[in-house]
């Protein structure tokens, strides 16, 4: 307070002072944003426009790039595989969200309790987050192998199915493994959020005789609204980039049962060497991601990401 009083006379009226300080500091700090801006522009922004540009060209990944008009788009949009790929991407997104969200909320609420055994469980629960998708994919691929895996070794017929060789089973396995990998992270987010719900809310509802289930529905869940939006945004936009897990586990197979957009982009571009169509697919990926993020923002009441990440 004393500093403010001391500086006030020098800069005139309070209003003027604020104005001059702001512009004064802006001039001398703006340069600090430049390094981040340059790197982000070079490897984030320019590539983003590059995707659009390359989708109107023909390029095999090595040789020269030739303009090719709308041919790539025509090829991609008329590809009979595209609706299927979009459908699988959508299915993975929705199912993994539907499995992860309730489980993460329940585990998060559970871990928010203070008992010692819960603290121990929290330590163990978190381990999957630390593993790479490649390691997880390799582990489950070996674990579920019908001949050499866990089921075969234990002689349990149910477990020794050809998990990754049957369309529906493979998709189910992907959903399960995605959930195994990401539920820990999201339940940790929920744990933190649950602990910030004021204790007084529970105490007063207890006086009114509300049971635990009632409290969950009428206090915990409404209070978690913004956290649900944040977590769902991360899940949904993140599900578009489940490349490594699916690539290592099934490579899109059997057939094209688990071929999601990101995988389609990779195999079109880097295996079939058709960078033009691959860029068109990437553009679809960008647009889907952007649309989903904006949609979830609207659902969350606008600006949810900011308000969520903003400090208390």
């Amino acid at each position: 307070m004393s500093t403010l009083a001391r500086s006030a006379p020098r800069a005139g009226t309070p209003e003027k002072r604020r104005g001059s300080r702001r512009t004064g500091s802006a001039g001398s700090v703006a340069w600090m944003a430049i390094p981040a801006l340059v790197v982000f522009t070079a490897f984030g922004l320019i590539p983003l426009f590059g995707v659009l540009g390359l989708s109107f060209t023909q390029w095999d990944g090595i040789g020269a790039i030739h303009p090719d008009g709308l041919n790539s788009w025509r090829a991609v949009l008329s590809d009979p595989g595209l609706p299927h790929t979009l459908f699988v991407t959508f299915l993975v997104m929705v199912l993994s969200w539907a499995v992860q969200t309730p489980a993460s909320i329940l585990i998060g609420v559970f871990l928010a309790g203070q008992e010692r055994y819960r603290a121990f469980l929290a330590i163990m629960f978190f381990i999957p987050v630390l593993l790479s998708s490649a390691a997880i994919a390799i582990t489950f691929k070996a674990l579920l192998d019908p001949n050499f895996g866990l089921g075969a070794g234990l002689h349990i017929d149910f477990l020794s199915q050809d998990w990754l060789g049957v369309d529906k089973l493979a998709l189910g396995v992907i959903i399960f493994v995605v959930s195994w990998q990401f539920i820990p992270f999201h339940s940790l987010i929920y744990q933190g959020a649950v602990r910030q719900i004021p204790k007084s809310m529970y105490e007063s509802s207890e006086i009114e005789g509300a049971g635990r289930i009632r409290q969950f529905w009428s206090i915990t869940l409404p209070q978690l609204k913004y956290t649900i939006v944040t977590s769902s945004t991360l899940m949904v936009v993140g599900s578009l980039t489940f490349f490594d897990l699916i690539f290592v586990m099934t490579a899109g197979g059997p057939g094209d049962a688990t071929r999601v957009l990101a995988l389609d982009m990779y195999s079109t571009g880097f295996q079939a060497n058709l960078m033009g169509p691959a860029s068109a697919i990437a553009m679809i990926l960008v647009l889907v991601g952007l649309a989903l993020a904006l949609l979830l923002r609207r659902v969350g009441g606008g600006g949810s990401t900011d308000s969520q990440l903003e400090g208390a």
Partner: protein
Amino acid sequence: MADTLTTPVEHRPEVRPKKRRNQRRHGRNWLAGFGGWIWLFIVVLPIYWIVVTSLKTQANYYATNPLALPTSPTLSNYQLVIKSDFAGYFINSVIVTVGTIVPTLLISFMAAFAIVRGSSLFLRSVNWLFLMGLAIPLQATIIPVYLIIIKLKLYDSLLAIILPSIAFAIPLSVLVLSNFIRDVPKELFESMRVDGASEWTTMIRLALPLTRPALVTVAVYNGLGVWNGFLLPLILTQSPSKRTLPLALWTFQGQYGVNVPAVLASVVLTTLPILVLYAIGRRQLLSGLTAGFSK
């Protein structure tokens, strides 16, 4: 927010009233506890299986119960993995991770500081740009990134992985850091200014120490992402000498696919460094990872 960060996760002050509540509903907590142990089983079973199997010989693995402890534990699988140059891949991963995180922290912090302190149109546009960057799945830009890396003659180098990794990490880092810098009381900035400190000094001496927890968040979150990254090394490198661990795992699995114990030993070895770090800095890691997300 700052409170969440500095208070270790397990030792919150409100233990007592909570206990009382829990005792009142003994029956319900039984169910929750049961669910908790079930989930523990689901999480731990694959991990237990990896470790146990990695200690068996291939013959032993096919002959015995897959969940039984090895009758004669062997480290031969680990020897095979180490002989396949995993030390080199490990060093590559360390270089890429450290080489990404240190510059990311530095330039993101500078940008966040500028965005909070300044108000010019330029800085507001930069902030808007980074916010947009959050909504875009940046992996979708991999083809132009590949083209740029080739044009810069960086293809098949560790720098080829590092540069895009920094760019992909910037939006979230700036957002988290700027939200923390915004929490620093305006009076402190003002008194620094009156004392004649430059903006740079203010950043280093005032903002940096006060937002250290946020820096941990950003470092841990991005560090895990880069250490475990697969797509960028897959596309931007080629020669075995430039492989990072996740990519090495994948090629090793392709080579020794039938030798399940050896493949699992490679999984254990690549995960071990992270698990050791987790054991040492668990509290920092757990609170750091989520502080930026749960409010």
